[in-house]
């Protein structure tokens, strides 16, 4: 039996007060936010609290909101309680100038590569990660390709004319 979203919200507010906010029900999944300094504390609480027990990290990724000043990057955690089959989504926002976010890889081994991927794509600097370097792209790459400001296509290619591909 899935845990009631209302109950999770009450438990979190009891523990963290105003530090957890923006609770919403998005297509049945509880989604909420916390300041980025609090991310480990929240994750640890969700992991340890016996009535919550979110001990499975389903997914970790980042999102770029270029128009939201000071909150350009969001790191999104999807957590799963396999026993009660409940999923929640947890977000922290960070500015693009200072992208330090604490690493979750000590808590979840699965977070190791997902954080490296997030660093590779968006340049989120996971503080405390033991091996934070590019994973999918070449080491020489000097930008973070999934940020909205960068184009999809390789700008150095010469054999494809953008005009001809409807992108002129």
């Amino acid at each position, binding site marked *: 039996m899935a845990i009631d979203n209302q109950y999770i919200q009450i438990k979190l507010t009891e523990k963290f007060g105003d530090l957890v906010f923006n609770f919403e029900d998005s297509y049945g999944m509880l989604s909420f936010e916390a300041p980025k300094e609090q991310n480990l504390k929240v994750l640890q609480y969700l992991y340890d609290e016996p009535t919550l027990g979110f001990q499975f990290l389903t997914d970790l990724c980042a999102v770029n909101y270029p128009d939201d000043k000071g909150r350009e990057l969001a790191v999104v955690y*999807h957590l799963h309680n396999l026993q009660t089959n409940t999923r929640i989504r947890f977000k922290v926002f960070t500015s693009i100038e200072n992208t330090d976010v604490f690493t979750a890889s000590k808590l979840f081994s699965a977070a190791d590569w997902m954080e490296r991927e997030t660093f590779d794509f968006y340049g989120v600097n996971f503080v405390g990660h033991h091996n934070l370097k590019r994973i999918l792209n070449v080491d020489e790459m000097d930008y973070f*390709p*999934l940020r909205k400001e960068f184009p999809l296509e390789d700008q150095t290619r010469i054999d494809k004319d953008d005009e001809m591909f409807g992108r002129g």
Partner: protein
Amino acid sequence: MTEHHHHITLPDGSIEKQTTTLNVGPTHPATHGVFQNIMELDGERVVSTEQTVGYIHRAFEKLAERRPLYQVTPITDRLNYCSSPINNMGWHLTCEKLLGVETPKRVDYLRVIIMELARISDHLICNSIVGVDTGAYTGFLYVMQYRELIYEIYEEVCGSRLTTNIGRIGGFERNFTNTAFTKLEKFLKEYPKVLKEFEGLFTRNRIFMERTIGGGAISAERALNYGFTGPNLRAAGVDYDVRVHSPYSSYEDFQFDIPVGKTGDNYDRFLVRNQEMWQSLSIIEQAYQKIQAFKGAEAEIYHADVPEYYLPKKEDVYTKMEALIWHFKIIMGEVDMPKGEVYKAVEGGNGELGFYLISDGGRTPFRLHFRRPCFIYYQAYPELIKGGMLSDAIVTMSSLNLIAGELDA
């Protein structure tokens, strides 16, 4: 000549060094995909390994931000290309969740048939490759022939064999033909015999057992911490299956078991996959019976009635005004998209395949993230092979069912 001559000059420290460094990959015949491992070996035992991935990184997620929803389907084909239809269906289900589309039961059952066929072909490749890596090429050559039967069904349904791009948001592009059902019947009749023989070649084969039992084992706790899902997690003894825990496409209407292993080693992974193929066969049979039970107009339904998202038939576009308008609206992005964030998971060939879609109301996804199961569990590889033999490390790699296209996105 009284002077003593050395034949070779050894670098400093090389005599004291007890281990050998070996580079495996990225194009090694035993890696079945482009993975690089720089291993530190003590004799033939693996001391440590450093992995490099990304050799076919194709920027799926960035590409998806440029494409309307219906054009993302071909990208999903190329994630886990051994079971493309599951990825296609997963994507359609994600869109349907976002758009609030309800699919009719017959569509669900048709989808179940296609997805379970895909699961069989995925497991078939993985298990036969485990056979190849333990020295039994026969099984592989034998079952490849029967994988063609599955591909012929796909071909009849959508015109393509491997990268299927099957179905649409809301259903299928066309109804299954009678030929497709005939081919399905043929498959259901012939395949159990083949699978039985395939199992006979391996499961109680002394050499195969010696090679796989105990190799690459992982405990349930570590597997969960590493984010394992799918057959690999089930082999470690955790009965988590998305089809049962968050049923999609009417999986709740079917009777099937979740096979689980005990030790999480290569042998258990092999057995779990074999058992799952039997379960898939039974699901397909049940779905086929349910489909045959539909009568009259119901038996002809192959898509949901959602003209604002479901692309109309091509003939109608040329001859009917309404179809032309809808076609124009969908293609030109005139249909309003809801804003929101959706996470939808399906049980892929090698684990929980998740789609995290953020829509800002535009015609393309604002952000689309794929939860690729094998990217997540491949991290555990150094831990799995540590202390084992080099040749077992190769078997472990193939029994994890790593698909480079999915791993590298």
